């Protein structure tokens, strides 16, 4: 049975008929074509599918789409400005060479957005804990942490799309 839900996705309102068993990961990828949301394990272990639901980072593979009814979802596709310019968080990831294969990148960027939204400052060690739900096999996390530190210092929550 399909169920009709309404949610805001990257700023625009979507009305969708979804299977009640469907994960948000599947809805975003296959119904809405938002393929930045990556599948790496499907059981909430790797963090590649992280998106923000009402500003909070969730593993979309273990989050049912019906739970997002009435909520606001943000993915990496929603970050780039209309001018085509990268958001500062994205630019910092580029500049710090925090990107290698890129498969964990969208999820980590969404965690960075969440962290900025918290309006708190974190030490490098605290940031290690904050991103420990994201597995990355390429970077040893070194440059990701460099990027995260800069994000916390330099990016204001006013720069984040709602």
């Amino acid at each position, binding site marked *: 049975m399909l169920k009709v839900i309404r949610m805001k996705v990257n700023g625009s309102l979507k009305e969708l008929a979804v299977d009640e068993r469907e994960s948000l990961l599947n809805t975003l*990828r296959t119904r809405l074509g938002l393929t930045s949301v990556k599948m790496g394990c499907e059981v909430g272990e*790797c963090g590649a599918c992280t998106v923000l639901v009402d500003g909070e980072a969730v593993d979309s593979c273990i989050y049912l789409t019906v739970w997002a009814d009435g909520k606001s979802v943000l993915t990496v596709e929603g970050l780039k400005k209309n001018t085509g310019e990268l958001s500062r968080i994205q630019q910092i990831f*580029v500049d710090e060479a925090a990107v290698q294969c*890129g*498969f964990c990148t969208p999820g980590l960027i969404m965690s960075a957005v969440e962290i900025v939204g918290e309006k708190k400052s974190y030490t490098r060690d605290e940031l290690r804990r904050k991103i420990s739900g994201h597995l990355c*096999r390429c970077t040893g996390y070194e440059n990701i942490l460099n990027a995260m530190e800069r994000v916390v210092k330099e990016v204001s929550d006013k720069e984040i799309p709602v």
Partner: protein
Amino acid sequence: MGAVGKSVKRVDAVAKVTGQAQYTADLEPRDILHGKVVHSTIANGIVKRIDISKAMQVPGVVKILTCLDRDLPQYLFPTAGHPWSVETAHQDICDRLILNRRVRFYGDDIAAVIAENEVAAAQAARLIEVEYRQFKPIVTVEAAMKKGATPLHKEVRPDNVIVHSHMTMGGADFRYEQARRTAAKEYGSEELTEISGTYETPRISHCHIELATSFAYVDQNGKITVTTSTQIPHIVRKCVAMSLGLPEGKVRIIKPYIGGGFGNKQDVLYEPLNALMSLSVGGRAVRLEISREETIVSTRTRHAMTGHLRALVKKDGTLLARSAEIYANNGAYASHGHAVCANAGAVFKDLYADRMGVEEDCYTVYTSSPTAGAMRAYGIPQSVWFAECLTDDIARAIGMDPCEFRLKNCMKEGFRDPGNGITFHSYGLKKCIEAGRKAIDWDRKKKEYDRPQTGPVRRGIGMAIFCYKTGVYPISLEAASARMVLNQDGSMQLFMGATEIGQGADTVFTQMAAETTGISFDKIYIGTVQDTDTAPLDFGAYASRQTYVSGMAVKACAEQFKQKILDYAAYMLEHASTDMARTVYAEEIASARRTAVRSLKLGKTEKITPAMLDIRESRIVLKKNGRQLFDLAVLGDTSFYSLDREQHITAEVTHHCKQNTFSSGATFAEVEVDLALSRVKVTRIINVHDSGRLINPQLAEAQVHGGVAMSLGYGLSEELLVDEKTGRTLNGNLLDFKIPTAMDVPEIEVKFIELEDPTGPYGNKSLGEPPAITPAPAIRNAILNATGVAMTKAPMTPQRLFEAFQSAGLV
């Protein structure tokens, strides 16, 4: 010019931070069918009967293939990501079918479901009933080599031993036993110390974050087409063709962006099955996304190896001889197996200059457990674990500083492997050791930590060294291609056969192309997708070969391309008053000609030749003084549309590489060991690399970070456990198989000793795999320094450490 050696940003970084980069699963066509593999639930046996009747009743099921189907292709094929050999003796072992009736490990592929949706496919897969004739699982090397053990591949290897290689250093007939007797006579037994021990490394999983995934369909030319997450599209084409009994031209492989591979995708995985699934439904598109659990168990793993080692050393610290008997657990299918253990043996003997020699026996053995294949550094993490644990145990036994011992005995400048001729052209090993020694303050800290320690937390310092060749010549074929095409605006399209899998290959190729052609870095557009219908030939991302071998192809192609541009530029300048005078560029070229004639003081009859010209930052300039003549865009536009001399400027080169060189380096680690908790905290880790000239220092450093973390993983936490009774993998998921998180990795320090390698296209040599080699043994040696406990088995988990500390009386 000058693009090589700069930390330019990755060419694919923007696509990756915006989600524009499309990986295999992002490209699936609509209305695709869903595939699901059915795996065996026994480790060793034969499928007697499969009942698919219940499964076929699940709504949405389209087709079920099983290993008992009469029309299943019966062509045995290899899967190793090696170029196929035209010499029978060097061909990879053909030991598997697409679906196998003879089950050889718990998780073998015995059937596949195709359905309209994922849920139906999964439900049907569960409803398939299988009856087996079971044999006893033979999970370990010992069990598989025991007399009377069931042969896993009766026709191919009746004794389960895939290969036994006997290797020596110090002459083909060198024997360790003989050397012992000779040494005793020559130096007196009281001058000698002998060390022996057994050291072990774990079976681990690559854990690339993107799964092994593909989809297949028949294209408009009637080709079976597989879009797949692979490091080796051209090799996959060959093996898919072999598996289906098709000519290669009927097979097309497309490789998009890849979310990491680390060697697992240097193997033909599920592409043959996926191709067969599509063919079985009339060429409709079928997707086959292998789950994380399946990827861990049923794709490839890193070989667990056991090394029985001996070393003979003089009390003054001269290493006389070593012997090694190495056993590699290859699992159910050959894959790369035979080559990996031989590679391990090669580095074990090369790394030190034993005065008398080295004798080795390397065995690669089939067992009924998950198949081992290539993984980052291809046997060398194992052999360096052996060599470097042994080295510290020797140094400790004779009371010598392990750093001094290495400096005295490690492989020397100008080393040439007597077996394969691979030569250490630019030698930075000792410089790496010295640089790391200084950076970590070795001499002072070693002295401090050598003093008797008390209390629950002990501190120590350790190191390890490695060498690593660059590419596979002369063991296997080395060839790579590049193609360059000029656009109207003077920019370049760059096509490589080599694959970007996350390491930054596309970026460094672009830098190289800019360096050699003179076209600006940002005016070179590289295609990241390799489609075997259009991509030039290259064998792919492995053996840390691409920057070297494919780099040679870029350089050779760029030289040709540039020459064609300069030829055309000279034509334009020479025809300034004729052909060019009729074009929109008449004035610009006439003025450029005047500049050239004046600046070079050319006489009336003297011609402007290509040799007088150069390209810098996308402008045609005078070679002599850099005077700018005209923009490459003018040339691009003219060459495209000239009514007098139209020319599409392109170049394509396949470079057959017949060179190799060694990279080397060292890791220095400092640890705090909490005895009661038996936990190791790495407080400092420094990797020093001798990788020739760096093409992109920022990316090179990032490559080292990832390698260090990977080595920490197998050193401290990663081990795939296979139950000996059932052959079932016990921790085949990311929760129970522990790869490092951000909380587990310390700050990683990276240093380079940059020496120009004379054989590298830009003075460079291997870097991709080397960082993953030495951190684990360096940490092991630091634990030894801290506690006096010599661990022999990786990973050094708290449980293993606790047991070792307990037997040493420390806890």
